[in-house]
């Protein structure tokens, strides 16, 4: 039996322990798995190689990692990065929001009506296969260079994925579930809200997750190719003024944000649908 006064947390126990090496001996000795070791050493080798080549490079095209990180921290602290990303993410939020609502709605219509499904399918197939970026000049002609054009590019990037997944989710609901709901007297709207939607939700959310990531790619495309604003403008500015550490730092911010978003959404989805 342990004494009832002993703190429960490992860290706390280590801190209050009288032993001088308590902080470290309090943890169980865990052997790092081969996986962790390989991953960390791979990152370390990459960082050292970048730093070395950066220092050796006489043309200054590849700044050493340390100066990139320095620029990154400076830009984070003085608000340059956050300001630029805020402008970009505005377009992302509107574009993705609209495509989420429209995509789920169209997916639902397609699942309920074979006519809508057959009419929409050839267009969705073409849009899924088409490189969205080729439409950008057309959006400039149609909507100019403002927020509308950016939002419509982002919309197009995300819309088809959301639609196809929510259609598949709703169509794939187990017929037995629906029969059961019917036999309990559910019809129409209540059948949909109580049975169909919960059963279809994992795939719908998976579609939204993919759509959010695609919308992020569309956001960068719009802010770089369509019109230089936000983070796209920031990268282009540092590129044109040959401030390469800052340029790499801005690119790093985009990459980190994209990865963070993908990981976070995947994590949330796993948490939310552990039952599925």
């Amino acid at each position, binding site marked *: 039996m342990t004494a009832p006064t002993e703190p429960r947390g490992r860290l706390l126990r280590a801190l209050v322990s009288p032993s001088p090496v308590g902080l470290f001996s309090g943890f169980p000795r865990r052997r790092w798995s*081969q*996986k962790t070791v*390989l*991953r960390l*050493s*791979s*990152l370390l080798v*990459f960082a050292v190689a970048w730093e070395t080549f950066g220092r050796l490079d006489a043309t200054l*095209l590849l700044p050493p990692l340390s100066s990139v990180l320095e620029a990154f921290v400076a830009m984070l602290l003085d608000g340059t990065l956050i300001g630029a990303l805020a402008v970009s993410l505005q377009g992302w939020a509107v574009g993705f929001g609209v495509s989420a609502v429209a995509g789920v709605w169209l997916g639902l219509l397609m699942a309920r009506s*074979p*006519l809508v499904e*057959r*009419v*929409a*399918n*050839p*267009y969705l*197939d*073409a849009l899924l*296969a*088409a*490189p*969205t*970026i*080729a*439409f*950008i*000049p*057309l959006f*400039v*002609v*149609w909507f100019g260079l403002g927020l509308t054009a950016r939002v419509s590019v982002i919309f197009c990037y995300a819309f088809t994925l959301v639609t196809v997944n929510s259609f598949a989710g709703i169509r794939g609901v187990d017929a037995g579930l629906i029969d059961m709901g019917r036999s309990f007297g559910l019809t129409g709207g209540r059948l949909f809200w109580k049975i169909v939607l919960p059963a279809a939700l994992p795939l719908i959310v998976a579609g939204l997750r993919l759509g959010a*990531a695609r919308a*992020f*790619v569309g*956001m*960068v*495309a719009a802010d*770089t*190719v369509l019109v230089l604003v936000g*983070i*796209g403008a920031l*990268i*282009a500015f540092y*590129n044109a003024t040959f401030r*390469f550490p800052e*340029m*790499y730092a801005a*690119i790093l911010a*985009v*990459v980190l944000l*994209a*990865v963070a*978003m*993908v990981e976070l959404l995947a994590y949330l989805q796993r948490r939310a649908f552990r039952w599925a």
Partner: protein
Amino acid sequence: MGVIVAARRNVSVSPRLYGPIAVLVGLLLWEFVGRFFDPLLFAPPSAVVQAWVGLVESGELPRAASVSLLALAMGFGTAIVVGLAIGMVMGLYQPAKHVLDIYVSTLMAAPMIALLPIIVLGFGLEVPGRAVIIFLFAVFTIIVNTEAGMSSIKAQYLEMARSFGLDRKQILLEIRLPNALPGILAGMRVALIRAISGMVVAELFLALTGIGYLLRLYGESFKTPELFAVIVTVVIVAVLASGLLNRLARRFSQWQRGMRWE
């Protein structure tokens, strides 16, 4: 009401025709809107077809396409070779997977367009630079799908192969590769679309040649019939190519169909 029902019975449209009919109705609607409302913004299909014929006859579109396709072939071809090699190594050797995984998944999630300035700094705007852009747009999708196909094999297949006395090379060629092939081909379909995107981006944003230059030229001069003609060409090529890869993927996955519910 009665008339509608009667009409429905007489004109029985096979459900398979709904798709083509939907496209036809869409085209007619577009023609109508283009002719009577806004020919500048919605160039009607008839004008687009005319513009397309003009672009082909003047040699402008074929020339631009050959410039674009050269870079596409180089970039995508290299991406296939490198992507298959890296994907197979990652799928077969766990250590290699742990070392490379973080870069592959990062660059898979990262918007490649943000990296364009770095590629241009390193490789320039000519064919090598454009091929590298196309390569980077496509290669990670191929790696991920090859790796998944290689490592997602059922243990029973491997046990069976061993009990029949197959050696490592035979297991790779006769068990693992056929198992991975449908996934690899599906990945290549997505990779090809991404490669075409990379091609257009490189030309539209950086180099101003080929198809991308035509898009920019006709967009900025508001020649919408020509603009539509170029976009439709890109879309049709992409749809045909992805349909072809889809069919290939289905053909090579036929043997799996019977055992899906084991």
